[in-house]
């Protein structure tokens, strides 16, 4: 028998995707502890999440500095001692800050958990924000800032949210060099006191989680009073979008050979009924390797090494943006092609085979994104942060079977009309 190499082997019928749910367990003081017990390795990830993102800060950079400085010294141990202890037990920390929340994550082997937990407790509850370490942190970040300012891509990424939201908006503020000089130890202490409290905390644990682990977490984090929940400042989330849709910033370098492009607009929250269809539409446009932007601008024209579009959901808004770095000489042509692709989504229904491909791809991608204990914990976090439950993922999987080209075209017309799109180019004017 001659092997048929031309025909694709048959696909398995769509099987149901099992979504493993995080379980909830309350600590004695009421801190919610969510956990996913899964995986084959003796590893544990414990993430402490606080509503302590950059939107809460009154002084720029304070939220990020507070978060980063947690591992730089406590009342009992220096930065070096903390790192030594964790290193010795093969454990590591990750601190991160987004607009809406901040987190401190401990990764450890199950066998070393009892050594690592007290250190985590100490740096959450008793950070000392030492002056010397703070100065080094600010100074070194200032230098990184200057290096970043030389990159078209970074300049575009920093300026784009401020076009969409306005520089005074909690999501739109663009960091300036001099702001590093305005960060003071006492601001960090105050921010920490206000936002890193038990009443403002949730814990997500994943990996090989057992009863003992839940009790251990309770021993370290379940005793402090949660009465005093953080008093959140009322922020003004009104948009102050730029009046000019088309924007240009000169390249920071004399001999620049590429320009950075950002295009997009403000959207809605993740809870909005259009959120799921828009994500599918975004995938078709620029959300995977075979997307229209990649096929046209990279694979057909060779203008770029990469181009993509993405949707960002924050608690008080969402936005959509396209990003690429393209050869300076072809920048204008690339922008024209991007508008063409947006227009095509508005005017022509997505062909059936392309839609089917994207649905299948997204199903596979969804399975990948649910693979392994840490991934499952992340999936939980992403709904929990938006006060949603697992029915969101059920709806999502459902939409991957049912959504039609007609619905997608309606969404495109609603959100991707040319006159609603902000455009930013960082490069050289011809």
């Amino acid at each position, binding site marked *: 028998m001659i*092997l048929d*190499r*031309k025909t*694709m*082997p048959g*696909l398995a019928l769509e*099987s149901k*995707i099992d979504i493993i749910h995080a379980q909830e367990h309350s600590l004695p003081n009421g801190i919610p502890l969510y956990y996913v017990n899964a*995986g*084959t*390795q*003796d*590893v544990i990830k414990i993430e402490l999440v606080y509503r302590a993102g950059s939107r809460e800060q009154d002084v720029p950079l304070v939220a990020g500095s507070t978060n980063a400085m947690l*591992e730089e010294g406590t009342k009992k141990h220096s930065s*070096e001692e*903390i*790192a*030594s202890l964790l*290193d*010795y037990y*093969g454990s*590591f920390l990750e601190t991160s800050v987004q607009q809406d929340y901040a987190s401190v994550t401990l*990764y450890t*082997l199950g066998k070393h958990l009892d050594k690592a937990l007290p250190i985590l407790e100490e740096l959450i509850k008793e950070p000392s924000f030492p002056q010397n*370490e703070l100065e*080094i942190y600010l*100074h*070194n970040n200032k*230098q*990184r800032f*200057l290096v970043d300012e*030389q*990159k*078209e891509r970074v300049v575009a990424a920093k300026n784009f949210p401020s076009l969409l939201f306005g520089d005074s908006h909690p999501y739109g503020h663009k960091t300036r060099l001099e702001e590093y000089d305005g960060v003071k130890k006492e601001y960090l202490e105050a921010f920490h006191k206000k936002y890193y409290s038990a009443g403002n905390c949730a814990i997500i644990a994943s990996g090989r989680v057992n009863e003992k682990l839940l009790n251990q977490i309770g021993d370290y984090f379940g005793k402090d009073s949660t009465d005093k929940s953080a008093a959140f400042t009322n922020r003004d989330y009104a948009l102050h979008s730029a009046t000019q849709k088309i924007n240009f910033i000169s390249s920071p*370098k004399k001999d*620049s*050979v*590429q320009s950075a492009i950002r295009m997009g607009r403000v959207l809605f929250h993740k809870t909005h009924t259009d959120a799921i269809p828009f994500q599918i539409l975004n995938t078709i446009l620029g959300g995977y*390797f*075979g997307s229209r932007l990649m096929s046209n601008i*990279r*694979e057909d*024209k*060779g*203008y*770029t*090494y990469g181009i993509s579009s993405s949707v960002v959901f924050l608690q008080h808004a969402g936005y959509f943006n396209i990003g690429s*770095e*393209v*050869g300076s000489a072809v920048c204008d042509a690339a922008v024209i092609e991007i508008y063409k692709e947006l227009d095509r989504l508005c005017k022509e229904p997505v062909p059936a085979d392309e839609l*089917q491909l*994207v649905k*299948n*791809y997204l199903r*596979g*991608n969804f*399975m*990948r994104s649910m*693979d*392994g204990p840490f991934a499952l914990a992340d999936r939980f976090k992403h709904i929990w942060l938006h006060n949603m439950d697992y029915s969101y993922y059920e709806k999502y999987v459902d939409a991957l079977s049912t959504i039609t080209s007609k619905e997608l075209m309606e969404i495109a017309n609603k959100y991707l009309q040319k006159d609603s799109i902000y455009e930013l180019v960082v490069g050289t004017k011809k």
Partner: protein
Amino acid sequence: MIDFERFTLANGLKVIVHRDTSTPMACVNILYDVGARDEDPEKTGFAHLFEHLMFGGSVNIPEYDTPLQIAGGENNAFTSNDITNYYLTLPAVNLEVAFWLESDRMLSLAFSEKSLEVQRNVVIEEFKQSYLNQPYGDIWLEIPKLAYKVHPYLWPTIGKNIDHIKYAVMDDVKAFFKKFYCPNNAILCVTGNVTVEQVKTLCEKWFAPIPMGNPPKRNLPVEPTQMEPRKLELERDVPASAIYKMYHMGKRVDKSFYTMELMADILTDGNASRLYVELVKNQKLFSEINAFTYESIDPGVFIVTGKLLDGITLERADAAIQKELAKLTVAEVQKDELEKAKNKTEAQHIFAEISILNKAMNLSFFELLGDAQNANKEVEKFFSVSEKDMLNEAINVLKETNCSTLYYRSNQKS
């Protein structure tokens, strides 16, 4: 511990299977034993350009990505100085699609002129994006040729210069394929929710009919021992000066590799590391400092690099690094300092084994080095390094006569 089975097809294709039923996915990794070190010195960057062309359609399948995406899969690839590695993950129920796609492009490519033309441009944009338009980007074009004079590690994977890519022609592409892309020059590893029987059946069906090739026996020039310090100075429009110091060390399979990896950890990994504490925090000479090894199969380099703070001269920064490194050549490292580095390494290995993709890449790579079973012996090898080994290796490696130093001077500062 990664359990696996292995077999070889009659055409020489080596196959490794690791079953992990905790996931609904499968991963297929194919490693081709060809990297930038195998290139013609007049046609560099070719292995990497070729990797791009592997996505431009094969003899029976006009497009690679589309069917894979229909099957819910995702893929990528990378080229290093040593290897070209292709990988994909997809729902395990659709495993056969991966075999269909990968076997067809091992059989033969479509060799489309359009694909060549476009990918040449894409790679040129990649060259610009990563090396020319990035502050400090051209360092990686400059420093390999300082450390290597004859061994092909002297050029970077992207190629010596854009012209080598610009003038690549279809005949080169065809010759390269014929030479290196054959079953007996590849290792296939399948991990995830699969069975050995299933993989055997699929291999017989899709890969066994591909004829054996005749890959050249590798015979690369050996880099002569460096006898004198080497220096290069560049001046660029960047906000801060930087220093790079590269020391010759052993091969990936040598004890030297494990020793120097631990050395790198002790020097710059984390807030308690020697150079961070001494040069970043105490003396405040650098904003950042890093030490690492090239994980290269042939004798590699150990690199120490830092970005200088304002007002610090390159000469002073260089002397400070040398002074710290010299400490490793006169006294053994502390017992707990070494233990710490080992424990950390062990944890990193265990964490990496969560992913079926990491496992597949690892098994393939160690099979290439001689035996996939060695993927399970890495931690043991790190633990076998003693304080005395560290001292001896530091004496061998960390000396100026074995070092190439780059001063990358900022012209924005005095």
